[in-house]
């Protein structure tokens, strides 16, 4: 309960900081609208037939719309944990927070919550714009499985994000996780085009990335209205990613904190 109260305090803090930049919300909303508009016209030029391998009968614009939305979650997870640690180190506020009895895990999680909340709003905005202005069909009957998929996706991505934060704490710069996973996911994860449509030696790497399973499951749930049994194999894969990545990320982070305390470099950047 106390941890929850502390996490709410982080959300309040970041909300106050966000609204102190007066045009921030409006500009972000414009950004999302423009992004959707650009991809709408790109999809008209591409005009990929829905029979293309991997599209699974889904219109290309709807396909890429969900890809973009989930890519935001991945970026949030990868950038937020490590990025916030680094940002708080640079502004000197990390030391001030570490002087309180709040655990460093809560501090890192709390500092990232606002980004996840904002990303969720962005994802919903993407879907609403797609539905209202561009006629994307979304199967709202599958909302619960979709929420489960998103929750598992966020947890799996968070494992990677926490691992990235561990690198930031220990190495300060040169975190390889963000670069590898972010660019790998954009390249072969099925965000902009199906990995099935790529040569096997390249598209095969997509099996190692959680975003591949998350996107396939989410598209099937929301765009095709698939039954839960069709989603289950991808949900199982996501569960496996969560079971491996989250504890690994947390262990790596604990190790990094201990090493940084030994080296006295906890607040250095």
């Amino acid at each position: 309960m106390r941890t929850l109260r502390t996490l709410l305090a982080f959300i309040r803090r970041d909300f106050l900081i966000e609204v102190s930049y007066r045009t921030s919300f409006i500009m972000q909303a414009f950004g999302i609208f423009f992004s959707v508009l650009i991809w709408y016209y790109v999809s008209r030029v591409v005009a990929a037939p829905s029979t293309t391998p991997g599209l699974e009968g889904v219109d290309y614009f709807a396909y890429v719309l969900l890809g973009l939305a989930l890519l935001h979650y991945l970026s949030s997870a990868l950038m937020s944990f490590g990025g916030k640690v680094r940002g708080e180190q640079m502004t000197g506020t990390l030391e001030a927070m570490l002087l309180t009895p709040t655990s460093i895990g809560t501090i890192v999680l709390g500092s990232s919550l606002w980004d996840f909340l904002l990303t969720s709003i962005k994802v919903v905005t993407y879907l609403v714009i797609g539905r209202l202005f561009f006629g994307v069909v979304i199967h709202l009957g599958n909302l619960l499985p979709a929420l489960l998929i998103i929750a598992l996706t966020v947890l799996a991505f968070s494992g990677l994000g926490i691992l990235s934060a561990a690198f930031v704490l220990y190495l300060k710069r040169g975190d390889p996780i963000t670069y590898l996973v972010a660019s790998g996911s954009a390249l072969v994860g099925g965000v902009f085009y199906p990995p099935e449509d790529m040569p096997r030696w390249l598209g095969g790497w997509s099996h190692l990335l959680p975003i591949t399973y998350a996107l396939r499951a989410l598209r099937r749930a929301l765009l095709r209205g698939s039954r839960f049994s069709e989603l289950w194999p991808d949900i199982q894969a996501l569960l496996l990613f969560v079971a491996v990545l989250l504890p690994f990320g947390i262990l790596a982070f604990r190790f990094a904190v201990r090493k940084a305390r030994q080296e006295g470099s906890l607040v250095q950047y």
Partner: protein
Amino acid sequence: MSVAVLAENLTKVYVKRRSLREMALRPFRRAERVTALQDISLETRAGEIYGLLGPNGAGKTTFLKILAGLVLPSAGRAVVGGVDVARDDRAVKRSIGFVTSDERSFYWRLTGRENLDFFARLYGLRSAEAHSTSAGLLKVMDMESIADRSFMSYSTGMKQRLAIARALLHDPPILCLDEPTRSLDPIAAKHLRRFVVDRLNRERGKTVLLATHNLQEAEEMCGRIVVLDRGRVLRQGSVTGITTGLPGRDHYILTVRGLDAPPSDPRWRCALERHEDGILRLSAEVDRDGRAFSDLLRALLETRAVILSCARREPSLQEIFDLMDQDAERSPG
């Protein structure tokens, strides 16, 4: 009187990280080690103001950071309020408040009140309690009128006062102040010193550990001090006891009238400077043996000179460290 902070043979050795180039060129070479603290033992009594005096790089901040759980010691142990910091740093953080001289440690776009509210929640206070505690501390720090202004508009003195308010949010019995007056002007620094001594130490009974490189500040505020240099303890005790026990000479400046030549004695060395209206400035370096200065005054009065004023020039911190170093080298063991 109970012990607030105890350090026993506290040692901190930092291992310097090697660059990739170094590791490739000299893979078997041992990484360089820097000793920040070496066998520091000290005891702070509850309710006292204890000074950590030393130049930059003496190890003062490392010592305070070990107490606050930010840095782990390499050897020895530190106990704060009866709790070993290596065993339960979260319990220690509940009994310690830390004030740094770093202005950046707040959220610049939030107001002073919002900043305090947020940190109060991190100390485990509930929302209403956090608001009332923040409001109370803003009043104590005389910051009510500027509480709802953004932190970025505060002067350095205001920022420092807010940092003290933050350290008091959980009402800790022990306060660590790391060079709190470093970036303050002399008047603001004086006010802050009085506040710490009168309001925090005397009225509220807080134990204060003050890290400073300012001898006068230590003398004005602290009952006892430890003098650190390059991670070693040079001396411990009262400020007067530490400076008077040193070998070497004291430096006095006297203004006199009617003196032709200064009296001569191997225990002192005088330089005379003539000013207008026959007033002379006598600069005297006198042996610190307890009698030499009285003998110099007596000798001056015997020449029928009139002494208009006399002031002792405080030795600089560096001079004291040099003397302590010489003394330590002379002392066996």
